[in-house]
């Protein structure tokens, strides 16, 4: 495992600290060198549920623990290590950044429910890509929400990156089309398309998203090369429905989970990974431009369970 950069680690950790605190607190309270019995397992399961893991995944993790340690004398740390190892094992295959592809421009379509942090995430992704020496252009296809275009334009200015925009109320698919043509003509490496937030159960809005995909395929049949769904980390089990529907409609290729700097417990990520097998590209841990970090399974699992692995490793 690569050594996590200390500043982002601190952020994620401090963000997760309340979560960890709760988990740590509840687990410590249960296990002070005691025999692992059903009552304790029940309480442990509840602690995981509070972390938004979902009833089924929490049950499975506790079942795993039961098989490994039932009836034995266990310590607080031991229990957390077993759980963290299991969480990391589940997540490990999905810790992948957005792949860089041999196409120009690589088209990254960013979608999600309202208010999950799509525009902010694009601003941060654009920063990462420009830092890597890539020529990035942005398309502000949220033509619905008031001042959404201006919001992306500010991010464009911060990154020194051009933003293609149209007036509020115009057709987002048409804008996506012309943005891709322009990006191609200008020899851009990456085109990121920001879309309006939409609830997954609104058929008309989902059709609009589908249309954006259909239309950009007319310029480049292989586009979009990546379709990133931005999930709000504070969302509960409804995240499952979001991933399911967006995946069915626009073939989501990976996830970014935002707002994990709060008490958002991110536990739902575990059950999402188990169910959908989609890469988790990055985590949003703050509003600043550098607050988007690669997803690392072990670090995430450890932070979630209050284990201080990085200090140990250091």
């Amino acid at each position, binding site marked *: 495992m690569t050594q996590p950069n200390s500043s982002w680690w601190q952020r994620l950790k401090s963000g997760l600290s309340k979560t960890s605190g709760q988990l740590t607190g509840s687990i410590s309270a249960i296990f002070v060198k005691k025999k692992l019995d059903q009552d304790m397992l029940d309480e442990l399961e509840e602690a995981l549920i*509070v972390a938004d893991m979902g*009833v089924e995944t929490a049950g499975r993790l506790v079942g795993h623990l039961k098989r490994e340690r039932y009836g034995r004398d266990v310590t607080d740390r031991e229990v957390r290590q077993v759980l963290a190892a299991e969480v990391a094992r589940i997540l490990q295959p999905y810790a992948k950044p957005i792949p860089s592809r041999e196409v120009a421009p690589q088209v990254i379509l960013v979608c999600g429910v309202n208010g999950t942090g799509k525009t902010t995430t694009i601003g941060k992704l654009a920063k990462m890509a420009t830092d890597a020496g890539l020529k990035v252009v942005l398309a502000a296809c949220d033509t619905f929400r*008031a001042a959404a275009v201006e919001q992306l334009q500010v991010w464009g200015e911060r990154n020194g990156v051009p933003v293609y925009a149209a007036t509020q109320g115009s057709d987002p698919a048409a804008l996506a089309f012309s943005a891709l043509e322009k990006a191609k003509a200008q020899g851009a490496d990456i085109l990121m398309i920001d879309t309006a937030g939409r609830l997954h159960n609104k058929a008309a809005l989902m059709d609009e998203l589908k249309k954006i995909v259909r239309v950009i395929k007319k310029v480049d049949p292989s586009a979009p090369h990546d379709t990133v769904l931005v999930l709000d980390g504070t969302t509960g089990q409804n995240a499952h429905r979001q991933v399911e529907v967006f995946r069915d409609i626009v073939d989501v290729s990976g996830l970014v989970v935002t707002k994990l700097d709060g008490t*958002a*417990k991110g536990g739902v990520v575990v059950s999402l990974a188990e169910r959908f097998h989609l890469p988790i590209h990055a985590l949003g841990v703050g509003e600043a431009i550098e607050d988007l970090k690669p997803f690392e399974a072990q670090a995430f699992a450890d932070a979630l369970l209050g284990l201080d692995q990085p200090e140990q490793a250091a």
Partner: protein
Amino acid sequence: MFENLTTRLGGVFDRLRRRGALSEADVAEALREIRVALLEADVALPVVKEFVAGIKERAIGQEVIRSITPGQQIVKIVNDRLVELLGGTEHVGLELGSPPSVVLMCGLQGSGKTTTSGKLALRLKNRERKKVLLASLDVQRPAAQKQLQVLAEQTGTGHLPIVPGQKPVEITQRALDTAHREGYDVVILDTAGRLQIDDQLMDELAEVKLLAEPQETLLVADGLTGQTAVDVARAFNDEIGVDGIVLTRMDGDARGGAALSMRQITGKPIKFVGIGEKLDQLEPFVAERVAGRILDMGDVVSLVEKAVENIDREEAEKLAKKVQKGRFDLADYRSQLVQMKKMGGMQGMLSALPGVQKIKKQLDEKKVDERVFTRQAAIIDSMTPLERRDPDKLNASRKRRIAKGSGTTVQDVNQLLKQHRQMQDMMKQMKKMGGLQNLIGKLPKGMIPPGMLPRM
């Protein structure tokens, strides 16, 4: 995998309904299921525990065990308790004092504060004839102030001019001065999204509140929120003090467990729910509706309102008369298809109907193609008026022409005709059985035109 609360409770109560009497073990099983179901509906754990304990108290004992229909008894107990905890039958609106009164909006990033501010402004302006001033204190998110300005223009309410570089407290003072000077009734202060653990921003918010002395401090929260709802509600209530909650994105398909969590943790009423992106889509919170949604009693009220909104009354009456006469031709069938589509298609209607969660799940699994509506309407559009009135006239050549005209196949045309025949038969039967009274009892089945399910 993750069943809705509704489905789960449906399962429990199905089992209970089949029994004559309830043992304590039955109750315990039901409670376990209720607990899991509430958790899957994102109700926070401490709230779930309290809820289940309350149910247990009411359920165990004579009330249930002696009752003849124990399943229904438990449904009622759970429903009553949910309604009670969600705030009962009373709607609490805004309590605005003498003008200018101040409404302070707060919450996490992306919870919908700015949009809700706009909606609230429109509501106060239109329904209560208030002169409203919108002021954005959001100096964090790019273009947030611009967003509120645009919303003010759209709603035709006042907007505090943007002065770049001003701090939230300075903007607040300016908003208050402007309101006094220009005779505004209400000032809505939209603030930046902040994490409840961000001490610096929470202090800033407290400072704004101290200065503004708002009559209403509203916590705007995402209706899709999970377990963290407890932390958010508690922190904002403890550190800032809230008077009410606005839940947004209640037009999503989350079960809305956050409603119960936040209400319980703060003890403060949920005043409004956001139910769409348009500025008039803010409604008073109705506890029964949310409880019903949670319990598979269905959100019948909403369905009826939707029906009133979308269905052409005259057309519906005309149709009803024809049905009573036993005449139901393809033109009628078409208008019915269009009306169903207007009401959000099968999925939309089913999700609002009581007791059909199981059917809905089956539909989900079989992937009902909503485009059937459009396709069938197109087929009928390609017919002559005569053919619509008398489908028996359709011979092979006519069918080929219709298929060609509607971009479908002869099989599609045949399938439509078969469905129409089945519907006609059903309606004749209904007439024999005594009409509407019976229909309502069989609503879930009757609402689905035969053949809507793909052939298996």
